[in-house]
């Protein structure tokens, strides 16, 4: 299967990429790892006339710590995230998720920026970004804006990125010592996408009760969402198994799964319950609880 014909450039600067996007308008698409876009183009579901490859632009990949945040270049691959000591120690749920995306070949090509910009409802990283309270740095011809994860994802395969903007960097506020995070997913047996994926970030007070929690769930509706009710159920309590069970039940109640070949609505809600409990248990454990 060949994609329909298109023209291609791989500019070496962000300014050149932005100029190409402006020049070609609706006809142009950015290319990152190509592991969502190229399969769609081969099936002719997408037929962009112009591809602007981001791979030669300096400074779009790389992972570094600075002033209370972890900065991740949009072109960083899942393999790079999964192998990064900074990611594993500072944002463990992101390392959990990156290591479970697809298979090794997919992880060698797919990028964090491409995954977030694509916003597949069964993708893993949008869920993690919500629980991490990440900020998306986006550059367009009108300048740079920083979009919080909750405002970035707006619907199925839809973000608040304008077609002439590039997501350049993801900024994750850093955990303090008593914070722990985890991501756990039930993988679709063939595609490996998330049937359900739950990300949890928990901060404990000195007395071991939950200071605050962020919980997000993906794969069970048009887009990943935070579950405020489950977060509130943890706050102020010691995160015992019973408390975690009750919070996970609120996650299962909040999701909106569809019945399909993978299971009934009741089965999927149960998956959400089980995986929320698992993610919460490891997040609490990593927070030292």
């Amino acid at each position: 299967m060949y994609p329909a014909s298109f023209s291609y450039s791989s500019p070496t600067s962000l300014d050149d990429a932005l100029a190409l996007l402006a020049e070609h308008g609706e006809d142009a698409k950015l290319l990152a790892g190509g592991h969502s876009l190229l399969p769609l183009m081969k099936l002719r579901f997408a037929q962009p006339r112009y591809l602007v490859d981001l791979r030669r632009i300096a400074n779009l990949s790389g992972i570094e710590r600075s002033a209370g945040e972890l900065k991740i270049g949009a072109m960083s691959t899942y393999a790079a995230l999964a192998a990064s000591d900074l990611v594993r120690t500072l944002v463990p749920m992101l390392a959990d998720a990156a290591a479970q995306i697809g298979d090794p070949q997919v992880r060698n090509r797919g990028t964090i920026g491409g995954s977030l910009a694509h916003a597949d409802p069964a993708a893993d990283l949008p869920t993690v970004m919500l629980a991490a309270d990440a900020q998306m740095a986006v550059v367009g011809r009108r300048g740079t804006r920083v979009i919080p994860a909750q405002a970035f994802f707006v619907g199925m395969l839809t973000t608040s990125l304008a077609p002439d903007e590039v997501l350049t960097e993801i900024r994750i506020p850093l955990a303090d010592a008593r914070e722990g995070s985890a991501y756990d997913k039930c993988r679709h047996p063939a595609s490996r996408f998330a049937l359900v994926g739950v990300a949890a970030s928990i901060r404990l007070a000195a007395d071991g009760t939950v200071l605050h929690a962020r919980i997000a769930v993906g794969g069970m509706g048009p887009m990943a969402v935070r579950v405020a009710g489950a977060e509130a159920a943890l706050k102020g309590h010691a995160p015992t198994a019973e408390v975690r069970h009750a919070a996970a039940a609120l996650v299962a109640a909040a999701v909106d799964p569809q019945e399909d070949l993978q299971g009934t609505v009741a089965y999927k809600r149960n998956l959400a319950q089980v995986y929320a409990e698992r993610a919460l248990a490891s997040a609490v454990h990593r927070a030292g609880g």
Partner: protein
Amino acid sequence: MAQITVTVNGTTEHHDVEPRTLLVHFLRERLSLTGTHVGCDTSQCGACTVLLDGASVKSCTVLAVQADGASITTIEGIAKDGQYHPLQTAFWEQHGLQCGFCTPGMIMSSIDLLRRNPSPSEAEIRAGLEGNICRCTGYHNIVNAVAAAAEQMRAAATPAHVN
């Protein structure tokens, strides 16, 4: 047309390609390296796996233009001086194939796996080959072959990375 320069199995190649040419078609049709197979053509089966700058990739999901400037290794490039790569020998000796269709991809993925982890456990071998599907063997002998090659390579201190 776009001009690309790639190093394939150690040989530098300059070619004009249509931007929509997939790397697997470039390798098979332009360079006649037909050891890299097309199984599913939908990014699932891994039969088309090659090494791109040392990392395993599904060449049906990479454009030839994306490989411009890169170094590519295919199954044809891993034997050295008439000697099979230890993984090739191990797949043979452990009966790690039946029809052989998946084998080039299995071996290229295994090279990347052993580069990252020279002493994988059985579970790590199975996880490392998750992107490769075999319709014949039931995987058991493939896993044995990778374990045997890993042991042999550790003993001989063969670097998994071939060029």
